């Protein structure tokens, strides 16, 4: 669908594959897209040189803090889209953008419907990459750690004949006393208590 005005968009995304998809979608809608691989200070210069109507930037990019300030430096600089989230409809769009990891900066005077359609197509592309991010966020390490803690608690409960709360408190104070991470202390306790138990745990083939 052709949007009502053709805009010049600066796209900053360290993920080249995703950037290509966003770029293709926006170009298809008749916008001009300038892609930039940002560096520490090139951003201010790029905005000054290319004078984009809109900047779409990966929310996780550290460049955002620099963009934030540009609107305070000069009136023509793109302003963070979150600043114009007065309308409930806009709030929903922006919330979806934040959720998908898209942040956007817009110069004054661009039609809200154009802004919305551009953000929506960026969101769609970013969302297809979301699954991957979620997977990375829940590191295997954290799950492993939890397993050790649960197991150590169980052993302490058996060994000390106490409830779960007290077992956890014992584990925690042992970790604090030895300046150890909770999961590391849990591992030590497992080794210690399993060594003492009559029926040693089945050795896992590693």
């Amino acid at each position, binding site marked *: 669908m052709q949007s009502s005005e053709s805009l010049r968009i600066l796209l900053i995304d360290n993920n080249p594959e995703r950037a290509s998809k966003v770029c293709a979608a926006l170009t298809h809608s008749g916008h001009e897209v300038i892609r930039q691989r940002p560096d520490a200070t090139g951003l201010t210069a790029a905005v000054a040189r290319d004078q984009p109507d809109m900047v779409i930037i990966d929310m996780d990019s550290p460049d955002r803090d620099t963009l934030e300030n540009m609107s305070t430096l000069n009136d023509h600089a793109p302003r963070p889209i979150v600043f114009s989230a007065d309308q409930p409809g806009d709030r929903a769009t922006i919330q979806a953008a934040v959720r998908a990891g898209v942040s956007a900066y817009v110069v004054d005077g661009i039609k809200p419907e154009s802004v919305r359609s551009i953000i929506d197509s960026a969101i769609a592309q970013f969302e297809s990459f979301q699954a991957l991010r979620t997977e990375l966020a829940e590191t295997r390490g954290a799950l492993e750690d939890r397993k050790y803690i649960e197991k150590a608690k169980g052993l302490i409960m058996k060994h000390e004949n106490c409830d779960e709360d007290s077992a956890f*408190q014992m584990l925690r104070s042992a970790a604090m006393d030895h300046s150890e991470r*909770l999961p590391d202390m849990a591992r030590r306790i497992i080794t210690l208590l399993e060594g003492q138990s009559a029926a040693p745990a089945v050795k896992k083939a590693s």
Partner: protein
Amino acid sequence: MAIPTPIRRHTVFHLRLGFVPLLDSAPLIMAQEMGLFEAEGLRVELVRESSWASLRDKISFGLLEGGHMLAPMPLSMSLATDRPRVPVTTGMVLSRNGNGITLGNDLFDRLVLSGVDLRQPIETARALTRLARKRQKPIQLASVAPWSSHDLQLRDWLDSAGAVNGEDFHIIPVSPVQMMDALRSGAIEGCCVGEPWNSVLERRQLGHILHSGHQIWQNAPEKVMGLRADWAEQHQEMHRHLIRALLAACRWLDSPNNHAMLARILARPEYLGEYFNRNIGEQFPLHPAGGNSPFHPRLHQHFFHNSANFPWLSQAHWLATRLIAHQQQLAHLDMPSIQRIFRPDIFREAAGSLGIDAPVIDSKTEGQHPCAFTLNGQFGPVDVSSDSLLGEQLHDWQASPTVPANKA
């Protein structure tokens, strides 16, 4: 599949908290690592954010309940006039000091050659101003965000010499992770940034720490635990549990015996490690003092002692006056609106339940105490750290109970 047993008999509360990978995010990281959150019945998901803007937006739009915040952030989020306001509450200061003003080698060398006493911030600010005027080019500096203590400290320091913003100096915000590139490329000549970045710049021989933030505002609140006010209002009990967990972590952090372990944990990829490996290809810097401590001996960063965690209303008021003085847009500001944002009452109750004492007053004259001093606490006398301000300024909030709002 076995149903996992709940950790505790009472409901476990889930809470998503953001942090920016800096040394002073340690209270949240250690509370998680040592099971302190869990001990208080909280299941916390820590979410790492690359920029302060991102942390702010995620809290504003409900993707996080709160996080590690720059001390002025609750004020700038709650009282903004140039964007939708998001009421934020803080019941606890997480850390004090820890910023450095670091100059690149060129500028530092020129300052040395000028013969100025490098220990005197007002003298160095004067020398830099003279330098800028002589070469007819502003000194190019960076802070981490316009509403950060770093930015305000830089400006207060330069103000003390009568330097003119835009003529004698320029300040741009640069994310801490990009400070190194900015300094190396010559885009900036110096910066005010939090640890471990000053240490990194020094170790890479890109610059020298000229001053600590502590020389501008002694023992100023640097980071606070900020929460969306609606969440804090609906979960008052949980808020107290959160403060208790973080207080235990802060107390642990102030013990030098724990610093080697802290360094090991912060170096893990999900905390600061990946950042360091990816951006600068090395582990973050350690200082030989106290057996491989991540804390720079000059920056006086601390987390607990001398009532470090107490959220003074007078310090919030001071920060608000600095924001306004340096052109940040804040709504009309009076003590009642600050009292909704900074909550010493919540702190006192949470700390008291752990037997940790806190002052019984909410405000004091800031800048009046060149040394640590003692106040009445709930249980007995409490120690409070010194609070000198650059140029021996005094800030008596009662003398100016209402801050004139700037023109929006």
